[in-house]
């Protein structure tokens, strides 16, 4: 059997998270969907948005289609190992099935199906799959419908995923699992009462840090002295982390080195958070957090929700981001952030200044950041920034902010 992970018509709407990455590359619960499926020993082909193809092919192998027994998985399915196992078990019965939620296909399995991936695009895939013979599964499975649901599902499924992931690591004390060349200072306090702690290869944890499971810290990370990382935190590879982090996800190559609180948030790649940057994750009223999403107020069902910060964004020192705010890609923030921020903006609203952040400047900054981490900037990286800049033009016009461009 071969797996086809597909982005449907809504994958691109998880802005800003999926502006720069495929939905199956979103980190949560200690892994991402592509990695989780790969761990199960399955060959993966994928269908992504056209402009992301080159970038995806650098990070994820796209196998040619060789099999006629096919399991389709929506790229917005959160990587939950136990659910995937259940689905794989069902495929053994060799009976076609479809699992749908909110009119979106989450899983579809066909024991024999001939398809030509070149002829199928993301728009026509759903109708093509629904044309086949199958029965609907009655069980409702999770699907990431809004960006804030990444944080919700991360909390719900983190510990049970670590149960599976820990098998790849060595247990050095009860509930603490490490990879190769991990350095944990003897003064680090590790609390595994509520979940495992996994620290991946070549990562260093500085003195007096406090780690409370379940957490996953990826490869080549640096956790500075006195850092506190608590509960359902996924720190991806090559991150530098300090201060207080709780129930949050940080994608690769981002820095949150200094003091300041990050809670119930998702932080993209190549983000730098200045010293003292803090995020509110609870309203003064203790009420449900609502987010403004595509100009509509959406109740999240969550009491704790911080912010979503797109790739390449930066915060100045002492930036304060209010509860449930969504920050776009490559925006620079200063002062109090009381509203959502579109992509490619210099956002200093509290000082009366909001300007467009020019693409050329973002490209230059990208080059400087990459060089510091020994990453070579290629045309693919630049093209992606250009595409995202163009894709988000409407955001800047429609954001309701009077931008002085």
């Amino acid at each position, binding site marked *: 059997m071969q797996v086809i992970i597909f982005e449907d018509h809504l994958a691109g709407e998880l802005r800003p998270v999926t502006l720069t990455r495929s939905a199956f590359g979103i980190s949560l619960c200690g892994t991402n969907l592509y990695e989780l499926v790969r761990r199960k020993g399955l060959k993966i082909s994928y269908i992504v948005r056209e402009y992301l193809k080159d970038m995806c092919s650098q990070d994820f192998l796209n196998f040619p289609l060789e099999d006629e027994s096919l399991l389709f998985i929506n790229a917005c399915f959160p990587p939950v190992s136990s659910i995937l196992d259940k689905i794989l078990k069902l495929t053994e019965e060799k009976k076609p099935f479809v699992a749908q939620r909110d009119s*979106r296909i989450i899983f579809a399995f066909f024991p024999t199906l001939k398809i030509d991936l070149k002829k199928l695009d993301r728009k026509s895939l759903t109708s093509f799959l629904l044309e086949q013979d199958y029965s609907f599964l009655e069980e409702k499975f999770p699907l990431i419908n809004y960006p804030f649901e990444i944080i919700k599902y991360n909390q719900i499924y983190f510990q049970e995923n670590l149960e599976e992931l820990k098998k790849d690591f060595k247990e050095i004390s009860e509930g603490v699992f490490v990879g190769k060349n991990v350095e944990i200072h003897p003064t680090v306090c590790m609390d595994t009462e509520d979940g495992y702690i996994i620290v991946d290869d070549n990562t260093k944890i500085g003195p007096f840090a406090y780690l409370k499971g379940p957490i996953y810290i990826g490869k080549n990370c640096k956790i500075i002295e006195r850092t506190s990382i608590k509960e359902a935190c996924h720190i991806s590879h090559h991150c530098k982390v300090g201060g207080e982090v709780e129930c949050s996800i940080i994608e690769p190559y981002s820095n949150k080195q200094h003091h300041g609180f990050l809670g119930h948030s998702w932080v993209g790649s190549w983000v730098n958070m200045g010293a003292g940057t803090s995020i509110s994750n609870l309203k003064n009223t203790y009420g449900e957090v609502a987010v403004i999403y*595509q100009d*509509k107020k959406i109740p999240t069902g969550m009491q704790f929700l911080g912010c979503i910060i797109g790739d390449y964004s930066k915060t100045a020192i002492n930036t304060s981001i209010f509860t449930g705010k969504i920050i776009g890609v490559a925006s620079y923030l200063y002062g109090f952030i009381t509203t959502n921020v579109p992509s490619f903006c210099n956002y200093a609203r509290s000082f009366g200044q909001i300007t467009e952040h020019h693409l050329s400047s973002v490209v230059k900054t990208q080059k400087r950041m990459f060089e510091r981490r020994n990453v070579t900037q290629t045309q693919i990286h630049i093209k992606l920034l250009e595409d995202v800049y163009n894709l988000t033009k409407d955001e800047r016009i429609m954001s309701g902010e009077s931008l002085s461009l």
Partner: protein
Amino acid sequence: MCGIVGYTGFRSCSDILLKGLKCLEYRGYDSWGFTFVVGKELFTIKKAGKISEAENIINKFPEESFSGIGHTRWATHGSPNDINAHPHLDCKEKIAICHNGIIENYGELKKWLQKRGHIFKSETDTEVIAHLLEEFYQGDMLSAIKKAMLKLVGAFGLAIISGYEPDTLYGARRGSPLVVGIGDREMFLSSDVNALVTHTRKVVYLDDDEIVKLTPTSFKICSLDKDKKEKKIHTVPFDATSIEKGGFSHFMLKEIFEQPESLHNAFRGRMDYERATVKLGGLELTESELLSIKRIKLLGCGTSWHAALVGKYLFEELARIPSEVDYSSEFRYRDPILSEDDLVIAISQSGETADTLAAVREAKRKGAKVLGICNVVGSSIARECGRGVYLHAGPEIGVASTKAFTSQLLVLTLLAILFARLKGMPRRDALIALNAIEALPSLAERVLKKAKKIEDLANSLYTYKNFLYVGRGYQYPIALEGALKLKEISYIHAEGIPAAELKHGPIALVDENMPTVVLATESHILDKVKSNVAEIKARKGRIISIVTEANHEMDDLSDFKFSVPPTPHYLAPILSVIPLQLLAYYVAVLRGCDVDKPRNLAKSVTVE
């Protein structure tokens, strides 16, 4: 939907093409046309009107022609007149084509071709194909066809002849049906086998992106990526008797089964995923005019009135525009209050409904903007409104409307999405709607595959004398429509009512002799529907439930369950009405009623 025939062989082709076209008239009948190859020249004759009513036309055909093409049209782009009738020719009048389908990108192709000097004569989407072939033809027609196909977006079945290769006939398809008939020293091409069976039963069905080259003694099939394709030759199992019904015993059943295609045609080329909205060409209203609309009035009669009721729910929920529904016949005589900020939407399959036409005139007189939703292009209502959205459902012959109804619902949904996006509907919500619409043909097909279940149900129900149909929200108008279908063709008394209204009177009718059809698909008010149905169950009423697949909430209450696939609640009526259409049909057949021509009814009500 249009009909195409083509011939090349040893016989004079005029009579063959004429008879063939008459067999295809059910596919379209607003205009017709032929092109014959005479020597190396093309002779074309085409007219508005029905081919069956054209008298003595055979006398106008050339005697010595052994290859030609013919077409009977159902207009989609451009009104039905002599100029827009097919075949269409290139500038030099050396290439002629007949087309069945819709070219979605014809506008941009037309501009491109005009810039390159091509002169267009008609308003059709089809004409671009003739000019494209002319543009690409450099001595090899097959290569020109391939190049043209790579440019075309949309659906087509094509028959092509040219003066360059007088005895060669070409066919090509994508989306629209095309079948090759293999004779002895003669070859045929047609939209379906009906036009061929009197000549041959050996046929080859073309698949998408395939091209066939026919000479009197050979046929060669290739595709866009393969030079030669081996295809199976089928033997047609039936003869010419059931012709235009395409193997179905009645037009109504045929039209019910055409719904996957008619739904596809209703949204084909109208979805704009990039901007997460819809494109409706005939609207003729600017964005600011659309935004200025404060109220929508929907008008219709019979089934169209039921579509209007669903439209009210759509406009109010998705676009948040206050909407009202009126019977056209009542509206026109009650001195309605209208202003220039009102949009009056007139819904009529035929576009000739006298009451609706008069209501449109009244609305215009009072200064409101009017918009027509019709199936027949160039019909009176379409012309009177001056702006509108066509259903593209193809001709509907059965008196009881089926496919036009579901297309009306779909077009109303498209309109509601358009308004909703202008009024701030999130992109995400619009994309959900667009994708769910795109899946509707597949889902309708899934419902139709279970038609036998409804046929069996009809066997146990057809002797009852009264029926109740109940539903809530979007399904209330569907309850009305289900009841109307049963009344129309089986002459059984049936009432459609909102489920919650049962307890205010109609429940007094319920006993073991009154079956109730319950529309209980997934929605936020399913629990309420269940409570209403429990009241019927307690009175020994027989419950037939239309439910959502994989949802078992109605299991305990139902005596019979028919499930439709999940879709957003505002699209559910399009799927849930299909089993009701089938139920009415099978009950009527079992009762020996004339399904296609029920007593006392006419297809198009052109009197007040």
